[in-house]
């Protein structure tokens, strides 16, 4: 196919030919083309099918407001549906296909929907598919979705990469049209840090689409000259292919940069970047969008917005037709006719709804005043139009202009409300703009070129002056004030055929009237009932005419009727860009324990614990499953010695003259008199008396403690302590710093723990039971002088220590411990064995400290000291929290030892129905105890401490299990604690 519709001129590189395909047909275009301009150049008017009625559709606009020309770009996993052909920059090898049709684009089987249109009006599915109820999800909705809609996904993983970033500026200018360029020039010359962003790949905005002069030269040339100057300024960052899509708090704007969408391949670079732009001030210079007029069959391919026609002719050197007419209610429509005629395109008629003289001379065109188009003919491409006086004019393109609406969307993103301008027949920005934003040019209702240029300059000057920059006194660039008169005209009442308002969602004038009749009269209800203004274009061309028709129906004015609320994003943002690089393992960072490499090389299976990866168990050859490994690790640890990396527990270094008193206040139990060289278990309460966290604090010197927290709460506890230090007790001399990552810490547990440690602890440190008893701590050295810390604490219930070395030695330390432990058959153990042993010992953990339980519930009520004040101690005394029948932590074992216990099961007394009314408590933790040979559990049950020996039922309706269990003490192993102290 040749480029039969090419005209002379335009901003395309005719020396280079780009090959592309549309529905498999080979076509050509040039650099500087969009897919839409190239399709028009090749005479392709039919580009898609409509959402609901599968009507043939062409190209309506030349910008991001395009509702019709949605195509699928690329192939395979790179396929992207719903791409606006008007925004797709042409590249060599581009592959585009039309969407939303069954069969070919030309012969869409689903076009039968158009014949059924009387039954498919707004909200038909709300009324039609009422019965049977169960059919909605399984039958009706899938069928509707299949026959209506937009493009299809490839269902393959997106192979492209995306990124995010952060930019900062004094002045963000949104839009590089005449107002934006004028603003950028002013602010840039003043030395302000400027970001100038435009969604187009070319700067200049409407200047590229017009034939008007600026400062005595063609507008496009002036734009190029300005851009050349801006490019020399280090303080100006020019961003093309970048849509500023949202205005957020504190001068932050969201922007999407399309980096490689105009290239055949991304070359391994991010396809798109989502920028967060921090601005001190902003100028919105986003221009305006032309509106259509609704008349019978106004959706045919070949019926376009007049400004878009002008764009194709002037910028792209393409005529959308060979015999055209213009239908307008304003002066601007005449410019299209004049430009077309100047390019030698036949303009047969200018149909003006106004009874007014010609705006300008258009050679060869009839001026038909006080008239309108009532109908059109040409199913797959316009052939003729019929006017209100029944005359028929044969044309293949109709340029329609219903006036221009300022692109004020971003002014509303923080709840700003636009105001109606009667003269413009459009909403303009209101006074409640986002803080720091000013609006210039057509976006502000300054519709002529001269006013856009001067407003851009003035707004930039005003904005940078507030920032302390010197305003420019240089006059704004000179241009003409072109005629811009407009008379409100929304739809042709005489039209009997369907007249489209929202071409993307197939919403017609009739639908709006029906919405009114059925009581959906608020614009928000209108939107949701008819789907007006939804999907990719968000009703940029449709909203104003539709609400004007609603205003007609209700008898209210347009400002009384109002608009729907504009929310981000201004144009669609791919989910890939929102995700950025946070995919797969990059979704979040991973924390590794110091002995991770050793664990990886020694058969560890890892488990995610928050961001940490911890060894869960270490499988040995011949073991049939995780239980084999875990049982072995537990048995061998209790029999001899086991080693576990417990670095993930939070560590907080606490120093200061008031450190002891500080701990007294943050822990429920007393710490003031803890001796140097001793460790104590500590329980923290929330302000409301509920248990918050537990851990230990070791006193290394009078003014120096090391606190440990649970892994999960390490950051939260640190934050809480900082708050207490800075806000509650600022007069205390207390200083905190996290050392969680600084020390590699290992639990060494089992009867041979001391024997093993003696081999690596330097000889000058006595770790005998007498010199270093249970709950002792000290700063020592290991392996010939490496500084270390030793704590005699036990989570397993065995003779146990935790030894810490600087993290850089952690991996080596694990190896050394295992090597030294060889003679004792030492085993590494993971989190599963650790969990089993703490359940066997009856130690509470996260399952028990779940944010609902009190010290009393945990059997630790005696720890809440009454002799001092501490966070939560007063509120823990509330009567409700100290009820006689409060739940208590106890142990459970199955009556039938072969039964497995289930965590989460609820306890029901024998003979009672298993319902909430009879709920006695719940099982918090369960494990198979290889030492006892059966399942064991911990759990809370009402008055558990008085019910030892009682049999209850553990019922889990979710798992479908019910097991009889006996209430037993929580300490299954060594209840007297003798092993700890040997």
């Amino acid at each position, binding site marked *: 196919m040749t480029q039969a519709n090419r005209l002379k001129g335009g901003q395309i590189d005719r020396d280079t030919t780009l090959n592309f395909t549309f529905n498999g047909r080979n076509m050509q275009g040039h650099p500087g083309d969009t897919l839409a301009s190239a399709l028009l150049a090749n005479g392709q008017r039919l580009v898609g099918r409509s959402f609901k009625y599968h009507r043939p559709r062409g190209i309506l606009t030349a910008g991001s407001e395009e509702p019709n020309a949605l195509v699928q770009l690329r192939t395979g996993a790179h396929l992207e549906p719903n791409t606006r052909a008007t925004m797709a920059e042409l590249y060599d090898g581009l592959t585009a296909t039309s969407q939303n049709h069954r069969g070919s684009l030309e012969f869409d089987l689903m076009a039968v929907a158009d014949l059924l249109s009387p039954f498919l009006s707004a909200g038909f599915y709300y009324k039609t598919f009422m019965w049977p109820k169960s059919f909605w999800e399984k039958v009706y909705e899938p069928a509707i979705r299949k026959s209506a809609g937009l493009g299809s996904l490839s269902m393959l993983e997106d192979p492209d*990469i995306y*990124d*995010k*970033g*952060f*930019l*900062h500026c004094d002045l963000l200018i949104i839009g590089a049209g005449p107002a934006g360029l004028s603003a950028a020039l002013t602010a840039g010359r003043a030395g302000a*840090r400027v970001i100038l962003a435009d969604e187009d790949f070319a700067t200049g905005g409407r200047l590229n689409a017009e034939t008007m002069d600026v400062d005595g030269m063609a507008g496009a040339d002036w734009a190029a000259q300005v851009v050349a100057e801006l490019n020399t300024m280090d303080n100006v960052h020019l961003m093309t292919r970048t849509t500023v899509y949202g205005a957020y708090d504190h001068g932050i704007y969201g922007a999407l940069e399309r*980096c490689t969408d105009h290239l055949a391949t991304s070359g*391994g*670079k*991010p396809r798109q*970047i989502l920028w967060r732009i*921090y601005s001190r001030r902003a100028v919105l210079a986003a221009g305006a969008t032309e509106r259509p007029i609704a008349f019978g069959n106004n959706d045919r391919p070949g019926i376009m917005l007049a400004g878009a026609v002008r764009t194709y002719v002037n910028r792209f050197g393409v005529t959308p037709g060979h015999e055209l007419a213009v239908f307008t209610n304003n002066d601007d429509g005449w410019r299209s006719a004049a430009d077309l005629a100047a390019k030698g395109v036949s303009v047969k008629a200018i149909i003006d709804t106004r009874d007014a003289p010609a705006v300008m001379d258009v050679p060869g065109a009839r001026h038909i005043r006080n008239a309108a188009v009532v109908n059109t003919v040409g199913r797959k491409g316009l052939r003729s139009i019929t006017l209100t006086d029944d005359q028929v004019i044969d044309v293949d393109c109709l340029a329609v202009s219903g006036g221009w609406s300022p692109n004020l969307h971003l002014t509303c993103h923080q709840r700003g409300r636009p105001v109606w301008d009667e003269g413009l027949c459009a909403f303009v920005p209101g006074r409640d703009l986002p803080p720091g934003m000013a609006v210039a040019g057509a976006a502000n209702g300054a519709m002529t070129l001269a006013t856009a240029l001067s407003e851009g300059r003035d707004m930039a000057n005003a904005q940078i002056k507030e920032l302390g920059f010197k305003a420019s006194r240089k006059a704004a660039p000179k241009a003409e004030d072109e005629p811009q008169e407009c008379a409100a005209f929304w739809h042709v009442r005489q039209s009997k055929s369907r007249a489209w308002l929202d071409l993307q969602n197939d919403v017609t004038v009739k639908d709006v009237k029906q919405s009114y009749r059925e009581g959906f009269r608020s614009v928000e209800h209108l939107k949701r009932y008819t789907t007006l203004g939804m999907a990719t274009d968000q009703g940029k061309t449709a909203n104003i005419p539709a609400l004007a028709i609603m205003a007609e129906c209700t008898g209210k004015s347009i400002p009384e009727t109002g608009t729907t609320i504009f929310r981000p994003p201004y144009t669609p943002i791919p989910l890939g860009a929102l995700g950025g*690089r946070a995919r797969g393992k*990059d979704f*979040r*960072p*991973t*924390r*590794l*324990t110091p002995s991770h490499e050793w664990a990886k090389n020694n058969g560890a299976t890892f488990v995610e614990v928050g*961001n*940490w990866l911890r060894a869960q168990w270490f499988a040995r050859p011949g073991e049939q499953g995780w239980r084999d490994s875990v049982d072995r690790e537990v048995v061998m640890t209790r029999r001899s010695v086991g080693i576990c990396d417990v*670095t993930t527990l939070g560590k907080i*270094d606490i*120093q*200061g*003259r008031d450190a002891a008193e500080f701990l007294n206040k943050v822990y429920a139990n007393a710490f003031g008199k803890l001796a140097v060289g001793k460790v104590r278990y500590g329980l923290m309460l929330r302000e409301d008396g509920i248990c918050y966290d537990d851990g230990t604090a070791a006193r290394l010197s009078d*003014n*120096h403690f090391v606190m440990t927290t649970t892994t999960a709460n390490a950051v939260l506890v640190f934050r809480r302590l900082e708050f207490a230090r800075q806000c509650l007790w600022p*007069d*205390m*001399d207390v*200083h905190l*710093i996290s*050392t*969680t*990552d*600084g020390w590699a810490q290992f639990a060494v547990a089992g009867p041979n723990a001391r024997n093993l440690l003696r*081999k*690596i602890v*330097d000889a000058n440190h006595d770790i005998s039971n007498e010199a270093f008893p249970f709950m002792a701590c000290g700063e020592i050295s*290991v*392996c*010939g*002088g*490496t*500084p270390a810390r030793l704590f005699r604490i036990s989570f397993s219930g065995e003779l146990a220590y935790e030894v810490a*070395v*600087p*993290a*850089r*030695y952690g*991996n*080596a*330390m694990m190896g*050394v411990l295992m*090597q*030294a432990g060889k003679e004792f058959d030492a085993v590494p153990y993971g989190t599963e064995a650790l969990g089993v042993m703490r359940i066997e010992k009856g130690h509470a953990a996260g399952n028990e400290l779940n944010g609902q339980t009190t010290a009393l519930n945990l059997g630790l009520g005696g720890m809440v000291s009454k002799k001092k004040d501490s966070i939560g101690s007063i509120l823990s005394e509330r009567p409700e929290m100290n009820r006689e029948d409060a739940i208590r932590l106890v142990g459970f074992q199955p009556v039938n030892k072969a039964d497995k216990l289930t965590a989460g099961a609820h306890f029901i007394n024998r003979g009672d129905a298993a319902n909430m009314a009879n709920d006695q408590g719940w099982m918090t933790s369960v494990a198979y105890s290889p030492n006892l040979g059966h399942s064991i559990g911990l759990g809370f049950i009402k008055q558990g401490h008085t019910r030892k020996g009682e049999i209850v039922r553990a019922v889990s309706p979710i798992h479908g299990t019910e097991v009889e269990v006996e209430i037993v003490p929580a300490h299954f192993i060594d209840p007297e604690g003798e092993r700890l102290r040997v």
Partner: protein
Amino acid sequence: MSDYHLISAPPLALYDQSFEGVSLIAPADFAVVSIALPLGGEAAALKAIKSAFGKALPDVGKSVLSKSVRLVRMSLDQGFVIFSHATPDAESFVAKKLKDAAYTTDQTDVWTGLILSGPKARTVLERICPIDLHGQAFAVNDTARTTMEHLGTLIIRTGDDEFLLMSASSSAHSFLHAIEISIRNIA
């Protein structure tokens, strides 16, 4: 003499890579010690710091280089001493110099350090660092706490085109990966 010996292996030890426009290096023997100024003893502590290192602890958000030791003011009552020190006694080294005028905590193994330098360093950081690194907003020796890819980060501008980035050592590999991705992603 112990039968056992521990080998030091910081998570990013020996990392040293050059890319187009930037280089990324994990500094060797990277040592960090925190200094806390006792309440009521601030003047004495500040005097001791100046006496120990020859430079005063700067204002919050600033750092100062004294020979090869960098003093960073983290908050009103906290500073960091960053220097090269091969043995695991950085804290006692600093503590001795301060003569008990301040509280010290070894932070060497808490952090991992990366030096990003080169003409494209700022462009790389635009992809990952939320704060404004323009020379007017973040001058040489300025410092800030921020987050990069969800990781808490201390950033210090050590030269016109050079930044020291410090993040938690447990997530060092994720941090390095995030910086490398940023380098790869810039045009």
